[in-house]
């Protein structure tokens, strides 16, 4: 019986981890290219969640169909933040960039609070109610869908970065901003593009969790901290690291919830975080940077 629970927890953890990976992917991409720890990442996810929520509530389009729209909105928002707020201070001390994204976070979160109140909102899709049964396993349908979409888009992003011209310019810029500028890459454009893609990723993750998670102005905090843990574990700036880290944290949280009472499962995550920071701040797949 115990074993059944454990397998169930691991499966749930993997499904959860796929979404974490997508959130972390945006964060790690932005860090990789611009060396910015984006504190507004959770707030951007919240915007993605509300976008999906309102499209569904007002027009009845479900979050999966409205994904392109949600991602478009988030892409534009992210690109604008980069272009108008972060670009001008890209040469400033690193903590100033961090504080700027903190300001953006404060603004977005409280704008949502102002516009839509602190109420927890949930979105009901009748055809997604219930769970799929596979042997002794029970898995919620929206979680499976979220995982599938997350995995697919991760793969798509990977191929995009690896094989397209634009993807290559992004990777070149991540390696060396000055060098990229020297060979004729419009670095500012790439920066805006990167921030836009990173935001679209996290917005997509937000939209994908709306069918089984609550939407509220400060919901981003939870995911922001987890995304930090994931990227530090995987290595800041590492694509593979975000994916593997996401799965590890998802499974760790899930098993922690099974074995520990209350919200102590979060303790497991933060303990991992601190240990990784102390003993291997470059993470599993990252490179040391200063």
């Amino acid at each position, binding site marked *: 019986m115990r074993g059944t629970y454990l397998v169930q927890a691991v499966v749930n953890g993997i499904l959860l981890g796929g979404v974490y990976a997508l959130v972390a992917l945006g964060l790690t991409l932005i860090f990789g290219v611009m060396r910015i*720890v984006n504190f507004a990442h959770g707030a951007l996810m919240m915007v993605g969640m509300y976008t999906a929520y309102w499209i569904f509530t007002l027009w009845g389009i479900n979050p999966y169909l409205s994904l392109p729209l949600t991602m478009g909105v988030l892409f534009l928002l992210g690109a604008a933040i980069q272009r108008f*707020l972060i670009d*001008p*201070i890209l040469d*400033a001390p*690193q*903590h*100033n960039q*961090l*504080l*700027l994204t*903190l*300001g*953006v*976070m*404060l*603004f*977005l*979160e*409280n*704008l*949502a*609070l*102002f516009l839509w*109140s*602190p109420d927890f909102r949930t979105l009901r899709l009748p055809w997604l109610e219930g769970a799929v049964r596979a042997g002794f396993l029970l898995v919620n349908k929206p979680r499976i869908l979220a995982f599938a979409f997350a995995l697919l888009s991760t793969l798509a992003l990977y191929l995009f970065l690896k094989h397209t011209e634009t993807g290559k310019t992004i990777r070149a810029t991540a390696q060396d901003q000055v060098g990229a500028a020297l060979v004729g890459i419009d670095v500012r454009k790439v920066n805006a593009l990167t921030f836009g893609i990173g935001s679209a990723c996290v917005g997509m993750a937000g939209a994908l969790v709306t069918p089984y998670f609550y939407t509220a*102005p400060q919901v981003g*905090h939870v995911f922001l*901290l987890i995304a*930090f*843990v994931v990227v*530090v574990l995987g290595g800041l700036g590492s694509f593979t690291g975000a994916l593997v880290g996401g799965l590890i944290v998802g499974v760790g949280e899930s098993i922690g919830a099974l074995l520990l*009472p*209350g*919200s*102590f499962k*979060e*303790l497991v995550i*933060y*303990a991992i*975080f*601190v240990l990784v*920071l*102390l*003993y291997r*701040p470059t993470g599993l797949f990252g490179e040391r940077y*200063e």
Partner: protein
Amino acid sequence: MSDVVSAEVKFTRRSMSMLLLAGLALGGVIAFPFLASPYALRVGILIAYYAYLGQAWNILGGYAGQFSFGHAAFFGIGAYTSSLLFAKLGVTPWIGMFAGAAGAAATGAFIGFLCFRYGLRGPYFSLATLAFAEILRVIALNWRAVGGAMGVLLPLRESFWTMQFPEGPPYYAIIVTMLGGIMLLTYFLEHSRLGTYFVAIRESEDAAEALGVDTTRYKIVAMALSSGLTALGGTFYAQYFSYIDPNLAFGIDVSVAVLLPVIIGGVGTLFGPLAGSLILTPLGEVTRRLLGGYRGVHLMLFGAILVAVILYLPHGLVGTFQEKRRLGRRCSHDHPRP
């Protein structure tokens, strides 16, 4: 010869006017509780309170250059220690606050030891402190003995000994004294060897190390000092509001509130935190009063101000002002007017 004399006269005149200004300010601060309405007094208390917390953060973040994003950890330790000692054992907060400060300083030194020993710098240090604050929040949330999610409600017994008062003026006296104390401390720090080490570490850790400064040790000292002082602010909060819970004590919001006035006012400056608080606190109170039905407006405003300050005044208000004056003075030296 006459140049020297006139310079001296100028100097004394300047220091005289500074002295006069300081005297006026002090008089205003002392007279304020006698003249102000209860509401204005509350705002005054909060201004001093946020300036105090900001200055405590400033010692570590501004002078030693270590950006902590988890000062809620130390704030919470202070608030919880004094509150629990009082609520469970009847120990007066006057003692409890120093017990909390000692506990927070020790915790801060320990966290600092771990982080700095392993060479965590910049954003890695910020993230680590954030994680430690969250760990404490989760522990407080799940630990029955410290009240769990319900937090700690201070038993109401108004007297000097219990640090509970029916009206504002005593609280005002306490927090203004604390603010005065920490400003004096920072002033002496600025002119001390220790403060010089801090600034050297901030400007270039490698260079400081090369010159023989034991950077890890002094960063830990800065951490302990800043943490202990932050904890005193936590006790004040608990006494003033008579209630504390895991989110109020250890939440991210606290860590943000602690550093906001410093960034706005000027990182690593003596008057920065006070200047920042003088602007942000009344602004927050007024918007909350006018737009009370809409929650979050004041924080939205703070976010926008933070972004604007970073973009246009990266050294904060006081920092930018000092920079301008320094540049102006240097120019007048280089090009003496005929």
